[in-house]
């Protein structure tokens, strides 16, 4: 009797959602099997990578991360264009660092104008990431949503504490929300239910399970994402059948192991290579756990991941 490879029985499918508008809009989701299990099911849309752009010059980035963007870090529009033109970014993630009430505390109107400028200047989908300060994010995203009506931005993090206000703005101006929960499958599910109750249509929801880099608890994120996919695909858990977005770059590049220069600790080796590899390896782990969109920083790391995605998705 011939040996037959046992196959997982899938009963669910991840929802397909469209991000952005126009020719460069992307579709993510649609999986009918575990990540890259092309021998068991479909993965109709490959995972996408969004490149980070900050709305103010980043102060604490290590040299390796700043180098590819020298000359544009004080201009979000130029930065975003560079990512697209020079590094082939298929999505942009604008991090609204300047709105942090504990930092520059830039006003909602001003922040929204910046978002609008970037959104108008590019044609790829735009993710706008706030500060996770509920009051401030509500204020900012209300303005952003209104000003950028029709752009189908991807806005977040939308948490339990501010899901109503931001969710309502997203419904009114048709943007996608990033449902963000602290590494817990049940909380993720609950927020999706709440957003559904609020009237946010399924095709406007993407999940952020909260991730961290290698050495900083990535196994927890991995395990939660893995369980989300198991519930979604094999247990017909409709409220978890959403694509997953992972905001990984800033988690990796803020760690001591990435920031410490070689001169200070020679046995850590070349700082640039170290940062790039840590980002790429962390991103790869998350892809294997089920990420549909990765927010990344270094062009070299992105290149590595693109190659991996291509290899893994070639039948």
């Amino acid at each position, binding site marked *: 009797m011939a040996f037959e490879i046992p196959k997982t029985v899938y009963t669910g499918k991840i929802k397909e959602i469209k991000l952005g508008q126009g020719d460069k809009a992307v579709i993510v989701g649609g999986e009918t099997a575990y990540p890259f299990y092309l021998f068991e099911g479909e993965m109709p849309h490959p995972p996408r990578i969004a490149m980070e752009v900050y709305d103010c010059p980043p102060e604490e980035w290590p040299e390796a991360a700043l180098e590819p963007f020298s000359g544009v870090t004080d201009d979000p529009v130029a930065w975003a264009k560079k990512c697209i033109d020079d590094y082939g970014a298929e999505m942009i993630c604008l991090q609204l660092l300047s709105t942090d009430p504990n930092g520059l505390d830039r006003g909602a109107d001003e922040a929204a104008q910046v978002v609008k400028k970037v959104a108008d200047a590019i044609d790829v989908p735009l993710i706008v990431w706030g500060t996770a300060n509920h009051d401030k994010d509500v204020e900012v995203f209300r303005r952003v949503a209104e000003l950028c009506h029709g752009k189908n931005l991807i806005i977040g993090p939308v948490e*339990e504490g501010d899901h*109503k206000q931001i969710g309502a703005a997203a419904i009114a101006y048709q943007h996608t929300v990033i449902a963000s929960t602290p590494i*817990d499958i*049940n*909380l993720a*599910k*609950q927020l999706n*239910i*709440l957003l559904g*109750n609020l009237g946010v249509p399924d095709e406007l929801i993407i999940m952020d399970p909260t991730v961290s880099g290698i050495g900083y608890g990535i196994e927890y994120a991995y395990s939660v994402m893995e369980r989300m996919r198991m519930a979604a695909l094999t247990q017909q*858990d409709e*409220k978890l059948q959403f694509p997953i977005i992972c905001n990984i770059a800033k988690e990796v590049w803020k760690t001591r192991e990435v920031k410490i220069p070689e001169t200070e600790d020679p046995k850590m080796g070349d700082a640039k290579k170290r940062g790039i590899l840590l980002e790429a390896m962390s991103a790869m782990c998350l892809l294997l756990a089920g990420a549909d969109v990765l927010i990344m920083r270094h062009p070299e790391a992105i290149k590595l991941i693109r190659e991996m995605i291509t290899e893994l998705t070639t039948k």
Partner: protein
Amino acid sequence: MRKTAAKRKVNVHFDPDNVDIAVEQGENLLQAAIAAGVRIHASCGGAGTCGTCKVLIEEGEVETTRTKRLSEEEYEQGIRQACQSRVLTDLSVYVPVESRLERAVLTREEKKVSQVLATGWRFTPPLSKFYVELPPPTLEDNTSDLSRLLRGLRQRYHLSNLSVDFSVVKKLAKTLREGDWRVTVTTLVTAVKPRAGDRRRPRLINIEPGDTREKHYSLAFDIGTTTVCGQLLDLNRGNVVAESIAYNGQISYGQDVITRIAYCQRPGGLKRLQQAVVSTINDIIAELLAQSQVELEHVGHLMVAGNTTMTQILLGLEPKYIRLAPYTPVANFFPPVNASSLGIKVNEHVYLFTFPAVASYVGGDIVSGVVGAGVHQRKTLTLFMDIGTNGEIVIGNSDWMATASCSAGPAFEGGGIKHGIVASEGAIEEFNINPSNLEPELGTIGGAKPKGICGSGLINIVAGLLEARVIAQNGKFNPDLPTKRVRRGSDGYEYVLAWAPETQTGKDIVITEVDIDNLMRAKAAMYAGCQTLSKSVGLGGCEFEQVIIAGAFGSHINIERAITIGLLPDLPPERFVFIGNGSLLGARLTSFSTDLLDDARRVAQMMTNFELSENVEFMNNYVAALFLPHTDANAFPTVSKRLAELASNPEQRINV
């Protein structure tokens, strides 16, 4: 009998109830409605100030005191405030829906009867009295007094194999002669091992002069962490003569068992707690005797059911190791204890029995409840839940039983709730919300002015707020509603159940987001416990053939609403049975039947305890249950369906 002709009788007809009642002319219309069983909402209690009892007078005449709650337009239409109207002629009255009090408010009395589910037991109390007339000693028959007594008992009642307490021997000579050789003896048996061949050995514990068989009483107690309940039982007639309840005197030393155990670690702490509960027991005994006019000397036995900690503290046994892993109680079966040696004010011969415990957190109260409910007698797959500060669950039937305890916290007893109180007069128990204007309809225990919220009230309130979408499924308030009742208070958002002038306290009674959170945690612990336990024994879901709910407040839970918040599994209502205070029930039944006393011992041995505190699955289930009703909507199909229907019909509440 002649009727007094002072006042003319008139007939009042109520619609849509379609009931009639004859009342005296001049009778208050609200009173007439109440007498007819028509329930009209009157939140101000008939003072005319709330305007909720408006009815339409279709035919006939009433005399009404006008208040500003009634508009000119309404008055013209024939609408009157029932509480301000007196009946003048035959009437036909229509009670509009907004004035109607939901039926649920009224079912309280009917539900109060606790059900005895244990069947097939014989009435053979462990405590018995035997009257003998003995031949006085002579020179020819000068055998000892004790031998004479035992011989008499053997001849008259075939009683043999007795063990004799020394206290009996001590007063034997005097009592025999005092009673002129006519005496009544009291015997007591303990449970025997559930193994054939074990011979029961009655203990001779008392002797009284004369025939005292008529006066034969015992006491049954439930020692709860929060409250202590006692019953005085007539062992001749098999009934409850008196019943009383009081707060456990230990309450001022901590609300839950853990803080009590911690208190015992202080110097003199254990003794103080022991004395506190004994003093509560003594107060209850005094109250029971006063109620029933029974004399203390005729009380011969004490049957006590309590959780492991309460039992150990009562017996003066160090409870420290209950709290420390691996959580060991001192004993599962405590031998009978002389009650007066513990400080309990009863006769010296009285023994105190405690129920056997299964584990540190599954105590004699659960064994008692299970025996009282007869779970061990049937093949039916049963879920037994004792809902209280320490939630305990048992799954099983006559063949096997698995049990677990899940610390639910004091929310079900009103603890940790801003305006929480134990179920007592004035506690808000029933709650309905008018979906069109979000105004509440309250029902309180005893119909008194509201004083606070009790556990069952809390469940009803949260379920009601959820269905009216005042709160979301995560228990958070929707702040954008057209009502003054949702507002920001010191603990975040809150809903005003009763305004200050309507309450006994003179302050607004509110339910806060924190309260809802506490209830959600409590219910999540209970439900997750059931889920984890049923999975541990290989059952798929919560598909029980019968669900027995014990707990003092249990009998007043509205099943549908408890399912709505996800406390109880989503099963057809007819599968649920309330037994009220199961622990007290079991203590009573075992006082009546030695068969059941044996069963208690057997049940304690057949229960397998599952420790949830170390169980990862339980934690996962717990977090999943921290949602209304549950993160897994498939586990609550009927609730999810209803919530979806309500959600798709939001225009319901748009017009104020």
